[in-house]
């Protein structure tokens, strides 16, 4: 036994690294793909059902849409150009140089009709049905190239609603499982989906392989990038990891302004947060510039409204809520609150460590003016459920990928209180309703833009929420990755032109 615990024991310890070295040779072979690290894999590759950001972004690579958006979020032709024949009749004509489906068949008007007919059929339970069913009365085709949409009511934003990927009619009718076996006419096609942590696409123009790899933990994702197991990633990293990567050789970091809007929401039915002076005091107590500089690592720009100023309905000159703790204290004093007799509020947030850190910073800033905040952190489902049910005083969330200004009805109209919409703060204001309704019935985009701009100024005065910031998008890649451009909404369209040098 002496020999076992002595020399043999050490021999065993020495053998262990040697065995590891042998195991290295058992690693999977490199298929030459460019690897993109994701925090979450797409849930479905069927655009008729996709609602999560990753699925939507990857579906853009696999499918083509009738309409896309420019940098100002104005609808632009993609697969089709359009004509407004009457306010209730739109004619879409497919572009002649469109790519065929990956199955080889040409995309025709029948495919467009079949895709939208499927979504409009309530029996199919598509989450995209609502916005389309409210507007579309019927769809007709004229030959292989022309699709006519007849509307129930005039809708200036209608073309912008047609951003869903088009699927082949024949496969829709046969009940093909697009969720795992997508067939689209996009720049990429499915190569393999071997398991739920790897998804491989092939670029149709040059057979470049692109592999999405799920790595949930951000630290591990960074380590994989440093070791070259992944070649690139976008967002979902805390600022300290980005700062760490900035010093790493062989890694390049690029940033782009984003439109994802972070805000602090209030429950307007609450006896405290329902008071305008308290909301105003909170708005003045938050030092957003410092948070952006020190916590977000300058990867954001301050926000004053839901739509960024460069959106066609955004407001470039909207005044900013100033950081003024003195004014905040002055607003709270007549209500009987000070640092000695603080106002007690609860702030709900998700269990995401970074969101929790931001909440802690805001908790400290609010304490400075006499608001003692109790943080309550929940898993996403419980947190989101509480917010929809109105079980909160304050919370913070983010609106992602907003393109159309009809979001204002969904978020602020008095008839949009959940479950009817996303007016989670139970904000009821006659002027807001009037501005939303007037904007919706405007007959020109210019008038509509003016009305939405007026509405955003009004909301900043009413403060049903405190606009915080628009978070930037950060793309990190190994040196050999070239040609990627960051999109305003954080989509992965940069992969259309990416290459390996």
């Amino acid at each position, binding site marked *: 036994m002496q020999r076992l615990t002595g020399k043999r024991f050490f021999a065993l310890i020495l053998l262990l690294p040697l065995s590891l070295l042998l195991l290295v040779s058992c*690693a999977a072979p490199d298929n030459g793909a460019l690897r993109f690290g994701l925090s979450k894999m797409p849930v479905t590759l069927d655009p008729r059902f996709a609602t999560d950001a990753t699925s939507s972004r990857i579906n853009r690579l696999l499918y083509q849409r009738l309409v896309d958006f420019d940098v100002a979020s104005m609808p632009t032709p993609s697969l089709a150009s359009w004509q407004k024949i009457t306010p209730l009749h739109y004619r879409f004509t497919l572009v002649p140089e469109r790519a065929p489906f990956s199955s080889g068949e040409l995309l025709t008007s029948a495919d467009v009709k079949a895709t939208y007919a499927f979504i409009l059929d309530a029996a199919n339970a598509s989450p995209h049905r609502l916005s389309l069913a409210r507007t579309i009365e019927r769809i007709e085709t004229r030959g292989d190239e022309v699709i006519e949409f007849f509307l129930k009511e005039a809708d200036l934003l209608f073309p912008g609603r047609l951003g869903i990927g088009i699927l082949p009619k024949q496969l829709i009718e046969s009940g093909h499982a697009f969720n795992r076996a997508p067939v689209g006419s996009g720049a990429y096609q499915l190569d393999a989906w071997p398991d*739920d942590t790897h998804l491989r696409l092939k670029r149709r123009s040059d057979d470049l392989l692109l592999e999405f790899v799920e790595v949930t933990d951000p630290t*591990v994702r960074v380590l994989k990038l440093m070791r070259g197991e992944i070649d690139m990633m976008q967002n979902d990293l805390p600022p300290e990891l980005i700062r760490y990567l900035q010093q790493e050789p062989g890694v390049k970091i690029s940033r782009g302004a984003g439109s994802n809007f972070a805000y602090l929401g209030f429950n307007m039915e609450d006896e405290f947060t329902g008071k305008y002076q308290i909301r105003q005091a909170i708005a003045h107590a938050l030092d957003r510039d410092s948070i952006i500089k020190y916590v977000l690592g300058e990867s954001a720009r301050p926000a004053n409204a839901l739509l960024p100023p460069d959106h066609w309905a955004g407001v470039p000159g909207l005044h900013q809520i100033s950081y003024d703790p003195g004014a905040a204290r002055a607003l709270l004093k007549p209500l009987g609150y000070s640092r000695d007799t603080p106002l007690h509020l609860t702030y709900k947030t998700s269990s995401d460590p970074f969101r929790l850190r931001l909440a802690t910073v805001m908790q400290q800033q609010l304490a400075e003016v006499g608001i003692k905040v109790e943080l309550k952190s929940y898993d996403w489902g419980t947190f989101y459920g509480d917010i929809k049910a109105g079980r909160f005083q304050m919370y913070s969330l983010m609106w992602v990928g907003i393109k159309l200004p009809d979001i204002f009805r969904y978020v602020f109209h008095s008839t949009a209180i959940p*479950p009817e919409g996303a007016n989670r703060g139970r904000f009821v204001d006659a002027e807001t309703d009037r501005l939303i309704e007037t904007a919706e019935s405007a007959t020109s985009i210019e008038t509509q833009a003016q009305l939405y701009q007026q509405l955003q100024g009004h909301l900043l005065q009413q403060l049903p929420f405190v606009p915080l910031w628009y978070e930037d998008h950060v793309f990190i890649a190994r040196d050999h990755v070239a040609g990627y451009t960051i999109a305003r909404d954080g989509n992965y369209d940069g992969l259309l032109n990416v290459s390996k040098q």
Partner: protein
Amino acid sequence: MINFLFSRLLSALVVIFGVSCLVFFLIHLVPGDPVEVMLGESSQPADREALRAALGLDQPIWVQLLNYFNGLLHLDLGESLHSKRPIVELLMERIPATATLAAAGLLVAVVIAFPLGIMAAMKKDTAWDSGAMFFSLFGISIPNFWMGPLLILFFSLWLGWLPVSGQSGIASLVLPALTLGTALAAILARMIRATLLEVMSEDYMRTARAKGLSERAIIINHGLKNAMLPVITLLGLQLGALLGGAMITEIVFSWPGIGQLTIDAINRRDYPVVQACILLISLTYVVVNTLTDLVYAWMDPRIRLGEGQ
């Protein structure tokens, strides 16, 4: 032995039935509506009701329970609300990864724990003993979410020997298995040391020494065999936990197992998948513990005889 076997299997079936009912009712108590998850926040009440009816969620709870058991008997666990894939398919994809990791973790634990525990017991109150117990304390104290990245840093980044994460060949199994196995090895080593020390003071050990047997023969043939019973119990419980999905390790190493599937499903409020995962984890515990009981009875006849009396 047959009576014992029958009684253990019967009680396992009762536990499985109880767990199935509990899982069903608990999942209905969790806040949130699967229909709203599927249709989104902005869906119309009419659409929600139509889907609720299509899914059978408008039926009385006992009818839903019967349907659920009917599905279980036919191995039909429904489909994921999000990916629309059959849940059985999802589970079948994940089980091999979890089983492989559990087996490898257990192997690492046994390989480390037995020599360490035996050595600590044999060289009680020496530097060897202190060293072994320090390692054990180290293994127990360091959480997996910390141990994992540390191992990655050392073996993957600094030495460049092993892949950081994912499931790509045998090499990718080493670090997650080491992470899982180290914690288990630490617990096992302490247990082996304690039970061996207890056994070594027994009369039959003194008799063995008096017969002139070597210390190694005494420990292996007499000591270790008698010290194994509590170790087997611990191994059984730990194996149940490993097979149920070592969630943190799977997440750190992006290991596509049951643990990661469960966490994803919880975050996405994919209730049927959560339900199936919890049921599978419970079933694993029941099966492993029943097997442990049977091994226990096989090793110690007093247990099955006591059961028979």
